[in-house]
């Protein structure tokens, strides 16, 4: 029997999206439909090198839409990069944005849109619902199957001066259309496929156990978990398999729709903290932290974690809680191991001395507010220490 709390108020926001092979080729048509005269194409060197950016630019040109390209982006987009992009956008007289790439270019494009519409420094928008004016039309063409920034209301920006990654959460920055094309993910090497895959799994798990979850988000979260569990490792073997890539990208989309509405939890809060301080790769941090956070959170939502286990194909019926937790953590560790994600935080350069700082920052990350178990700083510190 469901409890009345299951029907507490929930909202579900998703952008229009087109999923499928060659979806990217619709960029020109959409740009035109949005009234774009000149778009700023935001991308990164890796995607540029893979040729997806040029692919998209060609589509735009075909429709008579002019382009300016901004690709000076590091793997975690920095505030100053956002500001530079915004300056370029204004200087070039653009009136729309197209992001081609993974989480970094997409978050950066969102940041550029915020700055151009609201005329303030990007740092001013940290937090929830701080964006007042709608950003220009934004078309996202994801080339990884991880961040799901193409469907989310999240943008994660690095503040180099404060050495933090801060989250901007606003419905105003949900893209106008996501053109989700499995073809663009085929250029990912195995390692990146693993990192982004584990990121997506984290999204799904954290969204599922989030205190803001809803019956709708649950559907997407569990489906994402299922798809990742069964397709991630095979994809790493068959990088060109468009079906596997499609499954992984679909999983990423499902996870994105789930976490964008249900939000995340301690894994992401702590990963953001690590990323800000050490510029550590987001996917790796997630993968390392996930098992320890599950151990911490499990008592607060045992049934939900059991459902996750089931989605991962574990048989936990009648299993004691302690065993169920152990089985789940083992399954995740197994996945990490198979994906060759066997690092520790120590290997990423984390020193015991900075743990209190990391914990302090994580405690202020918006993602922490929906963690199923409300941690204290020392709880977070303890998790970091375990992950060393």
């Amino acid at each position: 029997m469901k409890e009345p709390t299951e029907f507490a108020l929930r909202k579900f926001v998703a952008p229009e999206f087109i999923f499928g092979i060659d979806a990217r080729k619709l960029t020109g048509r959409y740009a035109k439909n949005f009234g774009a005269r000149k778009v700023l194409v935001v991308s990164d060197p890796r995607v540029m090198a893979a040729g997806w950016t040029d692919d998209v630019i060609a589509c735009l040109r075909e429709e008579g839409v002019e382009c300016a390209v901004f690709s000076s982006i590091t793997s975690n987009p920095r505030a100053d990069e956002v500001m530079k992009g915004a300056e370029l956008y204004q200087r070039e007289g653009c009136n729309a944005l197209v992001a081609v790439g993974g989480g970094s270019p997409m978050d950066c494009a969102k940041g550029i849109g915020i700055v151009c519409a609201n005329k303030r420094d990007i740092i001013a928008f940290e937090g929830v619902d701080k964006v007042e004016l709608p950003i220009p039309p934004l078309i996202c063409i994801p080339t990884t199957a991880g961040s799901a920034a193409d469907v989310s209301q999240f943008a994660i920006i690095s503040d180099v001066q404060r050495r933090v990654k801060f989250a901007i959460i606003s419905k105003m920055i949900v893209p106008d259309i996501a053109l989700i094309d499995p073809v663009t993910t085929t250029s990912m090497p195995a390692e990146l496929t693993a990192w982004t895959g584990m990121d997506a799994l984290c999204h799904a798990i954290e969204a599922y156990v989030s205190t803001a979850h809803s019956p709708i988000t649950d559907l997407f979260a569990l489906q994402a978990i299922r798809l990742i569990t069964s397709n991630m490792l095979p994809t790493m073997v068959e990088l060109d398999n468009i079906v596997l890539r499609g499954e992984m990208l679909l999983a990423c989309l499902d996870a994105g729709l789930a976490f964008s509405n249900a939000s995340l939890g301690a894994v992401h809060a702590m990963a953001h903290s690590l990323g800000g301080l050490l510029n550590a790769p987001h996917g790796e941090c997630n993968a390392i932290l996930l098992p320890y956070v599950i151990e911490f959170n499990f008592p607060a939502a045992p049934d939900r974690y059991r459902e996750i286990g089931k989605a991962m194909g574990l048989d936990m019926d009648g299993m004691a809680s302690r065993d169920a937790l152990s089985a789940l953590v083992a399954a995740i560790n197994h996945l990490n191991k198979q994906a060759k994600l066997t690092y520790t935080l120590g290997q990423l350069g984390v020193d015991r001395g900075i743990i209190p700082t990391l914990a302090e920052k994580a405690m202020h990350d918006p993602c922490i507010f929906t963690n199923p178990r409300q941690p204290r700083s020392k709880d977070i510190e303890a998790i970091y220490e375990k992950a060393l």
Partner: protein
Amino acid sequence: MKKPSDIEENWESQREKIIGLGERSLRKTYYPELQQKLDQLERFRALLDQSNDCIFLIHVPTGSFIDVNESACRQLGCSRQEVLALPLERFFPEDALAWAREILAAEREQEWDRDAITTRMFKCSGGELPVEINIRLVTFRKELYGVAVARNITERKLAEEALQRLNNELEQRIAERTADLEESRTKLETQNKELQKTYHELAVETTALQRAMEDLREKDRMVIQQSRMAAMGEMLGNIAHQWRQPFNVLGLIVQDLGLSYESGEFSQELLDSNIGKVMEILLHLSQTIDDFSNFSTPDKEKALFKVDQVIVKTISLIKESFKNKHIAIDISSSDDPQINGYPHEYAQVLLNILMNARDALLESRKENARIAVRAWNENDRSVVTITDNAGGIKTDILGKIFEPYFTTKDLGKGTGVGLFLSKTIIEKNMGGRLSARNTGDGVELRIEV
């Protein structure tokens, strides 16, 4: 340190927001902004429509109107659809079209504004709208447009026309006035010339007059001189009369001395007595000379004199001569009249009249020739009348006796200036009056001063 409850509240509210239940948790929408822009646009459109200027947007590549403001429709009497459907040729005359085409032929915006031209636009309702128009090229979304702003200059035209009219009137008036002035000037010039001519003539006349006056004066001087010479002649005669008797006496005395000596009666007493008598007579003769010379000396200045004295003195000069000719002179005077004037000239007048009377009496050979001289005051003036009984003057010549060079005397006897001169002396010099009239048996000359 934050209390756990605070943290929990914070967590709860943050969670609510993340779920999307915050007040500002809105899906992206451009509508409010769009609405704002539309309002702005509507306001701006109203502004353009309310402008008095007709504003046209011309699409350069096609050379046709693509937008027009309300004011243009109103002033041209066309609907918006009409304006947008009709070609430029329908609205502009050929010269304005050529001008517009030249501007629109540019391939991009010009950095400078072309000067506006003044032309007219054809209304849909017929009729024309005088306008000042300028066109500026603008590029919008890479398309070139011409923004034509036509300003209705009807009022300005009217004002200009009124001004022109005023100007013309003014010019006309100035021309008229100038002509008037020119006419006046010409007239004045003519008058001036005439005046100069007249002046010249006058100068000539004046010179002639002056010369004539000079001549007259010269004549007068000669006449006076002649008169004076005649008078001197008369005087000499008178002196001869005056002196004959004393000379006779002197002769007797000298003879008496001689006879006395021969008879032996000569004595010292007789000698002394006779010397005394001779000296007395010589003194008398000398006195006579003084009297005559005084008489002929002209007066320099006016002086107050007694008329009676002058009469007595004058008559004393001629008494002997008149007696010799048997002409009696009666003198009567009352009131002791006095004159402020020239006594010698006055005396000369008296003498002249007396001489004329004598001549008339001698000519008439009258038995009891008599001259009456009377003097008195009348109305604050002195009056002296000299009346003879020589028979009078014929009426037809009585009016002419005071004219110069008029004489009734035989040739060589009179100068004809005596009475004229006398009248001049009395009337001009002394402001009096000299007149003549016939009495029953003679003439009365009346001197009023």
